């Protein structure tokens, strides 16, 4: 017997999407958090808005638009950072502002999709369709697979870039793979929590997990558990209390983080 909230098709799809994003967001988020690079998620999320706007104008799938633009921006950020003449923060800021500016211009060019766009800003998990689920499942599986293949390199590069380089690891390639995976994750998460809160879903469960974990693997495992707990309880709460789902999910994760700060924990 399904609980009442799962008797509706839209809630079933919302849960399916939420659970998948709940797994991949902290997986990638862990590598961003330990490298002090969570602003990348925010930047890519804002840039994706331009992709969504462009796709809506052209009558294409908005998630596909977001994925393409976020990937391009990810490669751009890494190229700008890799050259060494722009510091990482500035490279991110340029893309963030550029993305918003482009989105605003596209929105002003075409009136009439403001409501749709709003759902990408704040998330609208209840409107996830069957096609969206297939895209999230396929690309989500790709993210997990690639991360599995590159796990050791990513650990080494995150721990110490120079050490990894001196051991013969192709650091630039690994960095590009990481930002590309982050771009995919961000674009897929837009419908669930909205672009303004994607970074939160990718980092807050990780920050809470770091308070309890005794190893790097445990940080990853625990952050996935905490993220899933936030998604499930956030969705249930938002259903019964008629709240915005994205905001509720993130508020639950903030609550978990606050609990993790209570004395008597790990550090």
């Amino acid at each position, binding site marked *: 017997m399904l609980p009442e909230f799962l008797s509706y098709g839209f809630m079933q799809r919302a849960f399916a999407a939420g659970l998948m994003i709940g797994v991949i967001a902290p997986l990638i988020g862990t590598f961003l958090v330990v490298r002090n690079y969570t602003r990348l998620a925010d930047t890519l999320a804002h840039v994706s808005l331009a992709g969504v706007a462009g796709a809506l104008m052209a009558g294409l799938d908005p998630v596909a638009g977001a994925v393409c633009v976020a990937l391009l921006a990810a490669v751009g950020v890494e190229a700008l950072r890799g050259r060494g003449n722009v510091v990482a923060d500035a490279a991110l800021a340029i893309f963030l502002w550029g993305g918003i500016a482009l989105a605003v211009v596209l929105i002003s060019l075409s009136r009439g999709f403001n409501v749709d766009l709003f759902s990408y800003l704040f998330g609208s998990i209840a409107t996830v369709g069957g096609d969206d689920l297939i895209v999230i499942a396929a690309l989500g599986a790709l993210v997990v697979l690639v991360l599995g293949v590159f796990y050791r390199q990513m650990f080494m590069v995150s721990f110490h870039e120079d050490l990894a380089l001196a051991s*013969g690891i192709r650091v630039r390639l690994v960095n590009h793979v990481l930002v590309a995976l982050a771009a995919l994750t961000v674009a897929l998460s837009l419908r669930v929590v909205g672009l303004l809160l994607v970074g939160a879903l990718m980092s807050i469960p990780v920050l809470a997990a770091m308070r309890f974990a005794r*190893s790097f693997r445990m940080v990853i495992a625990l952050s996935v558990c905490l993220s899933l707990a936030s998604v499930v309880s956030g969705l249930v709460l938002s259903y019964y209390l008629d709240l915005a789902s994205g905001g509720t999910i993130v508020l639950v994760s903030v609550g978990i983080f606050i609990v993790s700060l209570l004395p008597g924990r*790990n*550090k």
Partner: protein
Amino acid sequence: MGPRVCIEVKGVGFGYQGGQALSDVSFSVHEGEYLGIIGPNGGGKTTLLKIVLGLLSPDEGSVRLFGEPSEEFSQRYRIGYVPQGHGAEPFPASVSEVVWSGRFPRMGLLARRSPEDREAVGRAMEAAGVHEISRRLLGQLSGGERQRVSIARALASGPEVLILDEPSVGVDIGAQEAFYAFLGKLNRDQGMTILFVSHDVGVVAREVGTLLCLNKRMVCHGRPENIIKGDFLETVYGSHVKNVYHRHGNLKNAGHDAGHDAGGCDAP
């Protein structure tokens, strides 16, 4: 035939935007050698290490590792590197995870952990004395413990050469003594080739078999007892130096504010 050459540096020069950091540096490190590199801050010690490790490409000259040009050398795991600071940032990993990561380049990045890998990692942890803390988080360790983890990580790949950058920074005196004793033993008993950079002239002179003094160019290179005499400090570090004596009566340090032109010093 003498011992094999592990590292060969020939006519290396390197400049940053602010000016020339190194010019015309040439030396070789032979198998089993224990080489210390000293010199004032800004004298190019770390730059030279980075060039040897392949982290920087020299503007002039060349580096050969085990007979191969550095840029084509693919077996980097044969050289263990212990960077400065020992990961002072609290990275959320256990000691065991960090030491194992030193083994990854040798075992392949997808291969399963073989019994041989387990043995090598176990040996490295035991040699560096981190077996008992292998389940602790890096952030819970003291500077000395972190340093030992760093060494264990470098040893896990079964290197033939160990390169250390300022290994004693952030480590208390007692741990430093034990650490240098450990390095000396590694060199004597296992024939490990060691190259390390330090600003601590006293320690370097006491421990190493060969000394290389660097102040943007090579000032001297040879056995410490042939080099450390007379106006040696002034020659390497410039004129504003003070001699300080260790607990053990060794000459400890030279001024950090130096950086003047070194003048000549007879290279043996």
